[in-house]
């Protein structure tokens, strides 16, 4: 059975069908939650961000306009919402992860899944040590696949600033993660 396109689902939910919006949610839930989680390193806050974006979409469905890629559009909404939540709740970026959080990898092999679970956990922990703006650049670039120029628009700053944030973020991560992944892969 052919899956409806994102655009068709958007049209349906704008006409008042909540199931269409819930299908969009199911389609991108894990991806959006991963984006939020990488940004806030807090399960509850990440869930709040994803939840708020979809409730907002339901409330403002008549005004919702998106161009191009729905997935990227939702990801940017989640990024903006996490920024608001961090500002409001002052969630500490480096707070320890919720031990109950279910973190999995895309990898199909069970033995790799277990290993990557731990990798994800460690990655979240080191991402949490970066300044928020740098974390956003890395996540938007590599998790959402956005070009740096678009990230500059989202962060409302110059492209050179985004370049610098990207470079600093990578250097910091390389230093922080030095040896950690090697240990895992060698094991």
């Amino acid at each position, binding site marked *: 059975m052919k899956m409806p396109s994102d655009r068709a689902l958007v049209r349906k939910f704008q006409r008042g069908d909540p199931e269409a*919006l819930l299908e969009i949610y199911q389609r991108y839930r*894990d991806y959006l*939650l991963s984006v939020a989680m990488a940004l806030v390193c807090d399960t509850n806050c990440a869930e709040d961000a994803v939840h708020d974006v979809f409730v907002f979409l339901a409330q403002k469905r008549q005004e919702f306009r998106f161009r191009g890629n729905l997935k990227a559009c939702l990801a940017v909404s989640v990024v903006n919402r996490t920024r608001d939540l961090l500002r409001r709740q002052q969630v500490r970026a480096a707070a320890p992860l919720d031990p109950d959080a279910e973190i999995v990898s895309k990898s199909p092999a069970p033995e790799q899944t277990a290993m990557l679970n731990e990798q994800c956990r460690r*990655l979240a922990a080191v991402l949490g040590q970066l300044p928020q703006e740098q974390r956003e650049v890395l996540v938007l670039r*590599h998790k959402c696949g956005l070009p740096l120029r678009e990230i500059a628009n989202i962060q409302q700053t110059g492209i050179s600033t985004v370049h610098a944030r990207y470079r600093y973020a990578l250097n910091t991560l390389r230093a922080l993660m030095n040896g950690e992944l090697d240990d895992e892969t060698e094991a």
Partner: protein
Amino acid sequence: MKPKHEITKAISQFEVKGPPRLDERVRRHVCEAFSESVPASAAQVRARRWRLIASSRVAQVAAAAVITVTTLFGLRLWNLLGAEVYAVGQTVEAMRKIETAHVFCTDWEGRKSEIWIQPNPATGTNDFICVTETERDYAMISTPHVSYYYYPGRNVVRIVRGQLITSDLDLARTIESLTQDAHRQGDTVEIGRKVTDRHGEVIAIHRAGPASEFEAWIDPKTKLLLSFECVRSSNPGQFTKSWDEIRYNEPIPERLLHFQCPDDAEIKPEGWGDIDDPNLGIDVTSMSDEQACREVLTRLFDAINTSNLDQIRQLVPMARGWDDAQLAGAIWESASRLWDDRTPGVPAYEVGAPYRDRACPLGVHVPCTLADHSGRQFKVAVIVRFRQADGRRTCVVVSTWGKATPLNR
């Protein structure tokens, strides 16, 4: 150092699986949001239905019945009906059962205060109330037999016989009045569900009209009031700006509940006149309410204009707590707050028809229009209390209700 491509790969592969609890939460709130964002005409119909539910005497029974039905027929019906299985009477009843309330408030100047209340479920009045304002170095503790004003910075305690009338704060009645007199005021009341950062999902009661706008948040589980805010008011002295947080059934600290004057404090015994003392006020046995209010206020304004302090004390029992200098100072201060030129007196005034406000148990409210020497006009509500004793009907002036607001400035 770790190669760049390994880091970028790790980020791109980072993935979290959404828990079932999130699915359930999103589904519920998305469905509710869809059911709420309906066209205007339907929304008006729903609001009217809500007003009926809120004001109905059988609202609690009806709400309970709906809850029972939805429980029987499953979750989806509950989702569809959402916020509508709620009646304000449920909150009023729940708040009548509390043992204590600890309220954190903010006033219109942004000052914070705390209030402890211990209501008496049998009488509906407060057995104990304590208001502390750190910024103003002030605590007011009121019990049925004795009340204290304590100023820690100055180490002064004023002791007042009996309960202070200002301590008559009834949280349940405040919520009841939020919806009950809306129709008379021409205000609209909307009740719905809302997700807030502070409390999560709440029942939100929103009342708005030309003169004021309020929002109250109710806990959907306990039906107790979570917070209350006066968003806008044309008479901002009438209410505290907001009750930011309310904690229920916390034990009242012993030092407040059984207040002891500090050994080295300066004690100043005082006494307000009793607002129910039949010897005070004027006899209005043969008058209608409107005539009585006009008579007592005309006498009061004349007494202020002629600086007849004894007459003021006869008409306003609370003024009996002050000596001549204090009373003259209070009139002077009121005048200077109202008129810029610090000229005491009310050269022109007009007394309107009295009305009842359920939020105020002290008496009827009488809207008055006052004018200063330069002709500028202000409006203020004055509380007049009627008493019945020995076959006589008398009335006194209690105080103003809120601040005076300019009409033509």
